């Protein structure tokens, strides 16, 4: 059950990453808006404009270098995304065979370009979401959502899922380590125990949730104050947002790299 251990490690890593980022002084809402606008700008790039995808890639790379953000765990998850994009995009080079240019002896078709841009867009949006998570942490993302008036009930549920997550992942990991030790060499959970093992874990979790929630309330937990703004909106946040939006828009709408390339070619 390596997936469970991976998940526990990821949650912990992201929980701790919050304080280490130089972006800590920026309001989480500014970071959330930047990530969303980046996703919209990247996905709006026409499928044959590989140059604009590269331009957005350069922006994200600059962002990561400037704020000292590391792709870390995200790089490993890239393969899963590429597998999905490969399934959807593999037919583009087969069905879209219009030759755009010849590179050496290879005819580069529009289908190849559209498939490449699909992969690039996927990777870029994945990294930007990851950078948001790394630089904010869950609590700050929730406070950003609260700032845009997402209903409190939904925020409470997301917060509790997140809080119970580590608890349950650890419990599941323990249960399945014990199971694996009793059933060596078995790839997964045998069907004869599907119901009893997972079902009993569910019932125990339900009981435990009640106890944990009561303990939280006894210690003064009030959902509406659980994720108040730890970083108030300040000048840094405004400057960050304005600079990010302007630089992104410039690279997305002005083909700077094509212009530079044409200068070299001419």
């Amino acid at each position, binding site marked *: 059950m390596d997936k469970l251990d991976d998940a526990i490690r990821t949650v912990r890593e992201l929980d701790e990453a919050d304080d280490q980022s130089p972006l800590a002084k920026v309001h989480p809402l500014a970071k959330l808006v930047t990530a969303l606008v980046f996703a919209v700008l990247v996905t709006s790039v026409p499928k044959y404009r590989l140059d604009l995808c590269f331009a957005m890639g350069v922006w994200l790379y600059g962002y990561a270098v400037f704020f000292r953000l590391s792709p870390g765990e*995200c790089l490993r*998850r*890239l393969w899963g995304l590429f597998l*999905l994009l490969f399934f959807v995009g593999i037919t583009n080079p087969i*069905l879209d065979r219009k030759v755009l240019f010849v590179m050496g002896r290879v005819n580069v078709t529009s289908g190849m370009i559209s498939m490449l841009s699909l992969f690039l867009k996927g990777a870029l*949006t994945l990294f930007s979401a990851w950078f948001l998570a790394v630089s904010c942490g869950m609590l700050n993302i929730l406070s950003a959502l609260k700032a845009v008036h997402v209903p409190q009930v939904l925020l409470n549920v997301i917060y509790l899922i997140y809080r119970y997550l580590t608890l349950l*992942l650890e419990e599941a990991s323990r249960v399945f380590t014990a199971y694996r030790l009793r059933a060596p060499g078995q790839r997964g959970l*045998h069907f004869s125990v599907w119901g009893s093992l997972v079902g009993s874990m569910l019932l125990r979790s339900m009981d435990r949730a009640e106890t944990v929630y009561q303990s939280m309330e006894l210690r003064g937990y009030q959902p509406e104050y659980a994720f108040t703004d730890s970083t108030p909106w300040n000048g840094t946040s405004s400057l960050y947002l304005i600079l990010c939006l302007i630089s992104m828009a410039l690279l997305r709408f002005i083909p700077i790299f094509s212009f530079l390339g044409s200068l070299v070619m001419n």
Partner: protein
Amino acid sequence: MHMADALLSPAVGGVMIAASAAAAGYSIKKVVEDPDFKKKIPAMGVMGAFVFATQMINFTIPGTGSSGHLCGGLLLTAILGPYAGFLSMIGVLLIQCLFFADGGLLALGANVWNMAFYGCFIGSVIWKGIMKTGASKGKIVLASVLGSVLTLQMGAFSVTLETLLSGVTELPFGTFLAAMLPIHLAIGLVEGLITAAVLCFVHEARPSLLWNADTAAKEGRFSYRTTLVILICAFLVIGGGVSLLASSYPDGLEWSIERLTGDTELESEETGVYSTAAGIQESTSFLPDYAFKNSDSAAGTTVSGVVGCLITFGVLAGAGTLMKMKDRKKTA
């Protein structure tokens, strides 16, 4: 099934976010109306975390060497009801998107729609309908499998539609759909069985946890007569109505023969056992090629369907009676 941002255009992503936000707004309204909603909040949190954790567990599928996982939407609905289940599923998808790179920010609306909306709302209709007269193991299995298969098929259909509307693939709609639906049929079946196993356990251990499954009415199963009437109606509808929609194209075997010989039927010898058998078939078949003799009327197909169903039903009923008689003789 998680869609990545790259698979969506901003327009399609925006529409799906709006649609999911509307469904979330309505769900919040319904959850808050519940007088016990404050008590429900920890259950929603823990169930969301539970679904998240169990989706990381591999369930071995016997005889295939592969593995599957729980159908989260349906499990949440069966325990929490559709509205609370939907909100929990949004939380799961948001955490998966941000922390585990499953899906994207722009694609969150589409993922909520494809996985949570169908799983919770359509799943709840199926669950509620089947549990109307009380829960039993058989009904839980039926609801879980049917719910998982149907909601996953709907989700896969939506993924295809959203990807094509976004213009990121050159695949024609039909081909894409033909690739997506069968694989999700198999996945749905397995997910349904895993979900059924867990829910059956809950039903045995703590039945009060199941949503809208009045266990007091456990015995309220369909009577033999009701079952018989439903079966006959289903036979008539499928045989008489749905048969009209049958494809006029050759089936798999006919298609293969056509590719080899140029015709869907093989030429047989005019003499010997072939001609004798063909003669018998011609004289006994009163509805050749599923139509009236010397007529192209669509009614022929309908009548063929109904007659076929009735004959099959008769044969099965006869076989059943014979087996019963044999058993009675043995016990006597």
